[in-house]
């Protein structure tokens, strides 16, 4: 991209670099996930000061040919957390850990950008995060190529039957089984239609989590460890 072209992005994570600089992991609409260095960003007089906060939508310009780009300009649509504490912060940190660990570098994916952007917007409006999280996880898995097959079973490749019971096998799919079933066929159809109201919520959560664990290829999810005790 030309050095003066503005690009839309979200900051996923930032860390200090030296005394005054910040290295930020960002997720851009046109170029995917990348790292940028904001030189002098911790100095109050810096034009970057106060902008490099997760979950705010930013407009930036950057330069450089190496893997680590240099931030040259920044602007943002304001994002302000209210001063009341809520469990929403747990969900936001979890989603950002997923983005950092699951997204390949430099792979542009505008659908994914829109998905993340909509998630952030919706999470500011909603009080109940559960369904929003499940929707995000299912869409994310789809876009990363790990989509769950809600259409047919894994043995006979028959369409899911509302009156049959199924177990879910991560990385494979649904298998008809009357022994300790996870879902009824109707549950699976409901999930496919994103109608979560009548689906057992713990089972639904296990389904997305098992698939995410498979995608992570052995990497740990710290947010799950940290917040486990609380989300029951």
């Amino acid at each position, binding site marked *: 991209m030309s050095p003066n072209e503005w690009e839309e992005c979200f900051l996923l*994570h930032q*860390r200090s670099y030296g*005394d*005054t600089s*910040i290295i930020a992991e960002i997720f851009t609409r046109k170029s995917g996930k990348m790292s940028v260095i904001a030189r002098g*960003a*911790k100095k*109050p007089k810096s034009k970057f*000061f*106060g*902008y*490099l*906060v*997760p*979950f705010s939508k930013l407009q930036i310009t950057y330069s450089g040919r190496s893997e680590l780009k240099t931030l040259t300009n920044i602007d943002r649509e*304001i994002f*302000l*957390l209210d*001063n*009341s*504490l*809520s*469990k929403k*912060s*747990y969900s*936001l*940190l*979890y989603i*950002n*850990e997923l983005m*950092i660990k699951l997204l390949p570098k430099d792979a542009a994916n505008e659908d994914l950008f829109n998905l993340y952007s909509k998630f952030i917007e919706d999470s500011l409006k909603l009080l109940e995060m559960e369904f929003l999280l499940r929707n995000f996880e299912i869409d994310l898995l789809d876009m990363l190529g790990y989509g769950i097959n809600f259409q047919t079973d894994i043995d006979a490749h028959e369409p899911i039957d509302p009156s049959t019971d199924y177990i879910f096998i991560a990385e494979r799919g649904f298998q008809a089984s009357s022994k300790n079933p996870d879902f009824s066929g109707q549950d699976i159809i409901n999930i496919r239609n994103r109608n979560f109201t009548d689906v057992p919520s713990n089972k639904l959560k296990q389904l997305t989590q098992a698939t995410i664990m498979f995608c992570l290829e052995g990497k740990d*999810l*710290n*947010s799950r*460890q*940290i*917040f486990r005790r*609380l989300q029951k």
Partner: protein
Amino acid sequence: MTKDLLNDLIQALTILPGVGKKSAQRMALYLLDKNKQGAKIMASTLLEAVEDISRCKRCRMLTSNDLCRVCSDLSRDDKSICIVESPSDVLAIESTGGYKGKYFVLLGRLSPIEGVGPEELGIDELLIIIESEGIEELILATSSTVEGDATGMYIKDHIPDIKVSRISYGIPIGGELEYVDSNTIAQAIQGRTEV
């Protein structure tokens, strides 16, 4: 090879935050040329501090005693704890003189991406203090970021039913200068709120 002590001193000074080679040169020449006595005091104090200062056994603030100045001060309100992220936050709040309770220093905030969890922040120790000392009020002064919120919420989720309020952040307190902008300053003016 002969020893170049002047250069060594300049090098040593550059480890300080905000001190580059030029400032380090100026400092070294000042100490050696203009204020040798001050330099000697500085050197011995620094050495003593590095060797003797560790963490307060109760609140994790820096101190050369078992308990820090605040924790051992009997005139302070021992039913109130203000929870901060760093020792510099304690110094900042103390300098306002407006708070008469005690502290707990987390030495960080929850950060799943960096692998910082409740153990690193000493939250179990904090819970023991709250229970054993019969604490009646918690003031959460974690930073005004999503991680700071999650940290505050996590603590609130784990304690018995006592009064919890959140300091309104914004005015540059301690290590969170990088997040200060007009929005957060506006928040700060609203004062602390019960959560």
